[in-house]
């Protein structure tokens, strides 16, 4: 069985089928992209994996563990982190607090330790702070450490969104259109980060993205969704020559 295994997942809202009989195998250490026209079910797929939606039918397994009905906070503690398409940051907190809060969910010391702040608590706290700083360095967010997230530009907020997910030290990172609404320079920046996340941090990336150029360049594996169904999968080369995919994107002549 694959690392993250989506088998026969169907998601319906009343009569509307957002996903139907989707199978996906996501392999460790690779960048897997999910592409498709608007409304194809890409974000629904991410929602199912991250526990925001639960499939009507079918199962999702991660490292042999079933997470079909897990809630979002359980999924994130299992090592699957997510960055949202529409920013879901804590805009009233600073960049540092946004990241520390994510890190804090993994605190393993007792309330008494916390109150008196000795031994384990201060050591864990220092480790956490160190980890968060390493993520800030990695995402090049140093100048914004103390800024309120709500006051930052859209491009920087998108980076904070990715950074917050990284702070959870995930095995798998789900990125939902991290480049949407960005200019060319910012896009190139994010592409570089995504590649570094995979190579330097050894994190498996699942990317939902509209920019086909980017997807073809960096993906190891691509799934194409259309009207909730997988219409093609494989390496970028295979996808580029798949007639069904070309039809969905360009239309019949």
């Amino acid at each position, binding site marked *: 069985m694959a690392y993250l295994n989506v088998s026969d997942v169907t998601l319906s809202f009343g009569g509307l089928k957002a996903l139907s009989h989707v199978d996906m195998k996501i392999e460790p250490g690779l960048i897997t992209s999910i592409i498709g026209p608007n409304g194809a079910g890409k974000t629904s797929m991410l929602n199912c994996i*991250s*526990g*925001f939606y639960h499939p009507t039918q079918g199962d999702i397994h991660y490292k042999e563990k079933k997470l079909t009905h897990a*809630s*979002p*906070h359980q999924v*994130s*503690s299992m090592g699957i*982190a*997510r960055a*949202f398409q529409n920013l*879901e*940051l*804590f*805009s*009233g*907190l600073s960049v540092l*607090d946004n990241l520390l*809060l*994510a890190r*804090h*969910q*993994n*605190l393993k010391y007792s309330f008494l330790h*916390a109150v008196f702040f000795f031994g384990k608590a201060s050591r864990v706290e220092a480790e956490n702070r160190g980890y968060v700083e390493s993520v800030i360095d990695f995402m090049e967010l140093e100048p914004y450490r103390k800024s309120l997230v709500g006051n930052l530009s859209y491009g920087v907020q998108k980076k904070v969104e990715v950074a*917050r*997910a990284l*702070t*959870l030290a995930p095995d798998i990172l789900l990125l939902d259109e991290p480049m949407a609404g960005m200019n060319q320079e910012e896009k190139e920046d994010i592409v570089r980060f995504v590649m570094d996340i995979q190579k330097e941090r050894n994190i498996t990336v699942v990317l939902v993205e509209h920019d086909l150029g980017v997807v073809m360049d960096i993906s190891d594996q691509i799934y194409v969704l259309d009207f909730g169904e997988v219409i093609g999968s494989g390496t970028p080369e295979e996808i580029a020559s798949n007639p069904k995919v070309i039809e969905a994107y360009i239309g019949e002549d």
Partner: protein
Amino acid sequence: MSYFFQIVVSGVVVGSIYALAALGLVLVYKSSRVANFAHGQIIAAGAFITYFLTVTVGIPIFFSFLASMIITFFLAMSVERIFLRRLIGEPIISVIMVTIGLGSIIDGLIYLTPFGSENFSFPEFLPQNSLSLGGVSISWTQLLGVIITFLLIGGFSWFFKKSTVGISMRAVSDDQFGAMSVGISVPRVFGLAWAAAGLSAAAAGCIIGNITGLNFETLHAFGIIVFPVVILGGLDSILGAVVAGIIMGLIQQFAGGYLDGNFGLSGTGNVLPYIILLIILLFKPHGLFGIHEIERV
């Protein structure tokens, strides 16, 4: 002049209790966007539990005060768990209707007991004389009430600023999806918000009961007067609840002290909060400290 300062003092006393009573409403609204119309009943229940433990069971009053806060903490948490948890994701208006229903049920239960109709008062445990300073006097009960109120509000503010659970609660009120994605259990935070609201309501109930006596109607009315307070302060701001509580207390006392009896007016202190409520809603709907959300489109 001492008449003026006397009114300031009683305004601050009443106002700080409003602040404490309003705190519970803000906590629940801040995390789950639900206006709790059963808040007055929880305030009353907290006071009656303390009375029961002190007088009927015979526990020293300070311990029964603490016990009552702990009991309402768990009571409010179970109310959330049993009735409101399954409504997560339903329209807010349904949840609000449920709180109104819960309020009526608690009303009914309290009317079944002697507390529903008779007046009680806590046994006296403080010196009966008043502290007097330059013609302005404050009773020991009032002074103790204000001190406990400020300690509690200070404690809550510290909790929300510094503790992990407190910051998680703020994160949930800021962005629920974001909070879930970093591993915060949103239902657990809702439960804690209700629990904290129950605890602060019980404390408010006891302090009011100790100053004015235990009367169901009076205690219950605090659940309504807190609405003008939180609207003035901003529904989701703890600081707003404190400032607006004190402003409202001062307004009421000044109205009672200067307007009533003149110009043929009476009972102005009871009406003014609601007039202010209307004015605030017309001109500054987010209150003094509430967050005005601006959506970028």
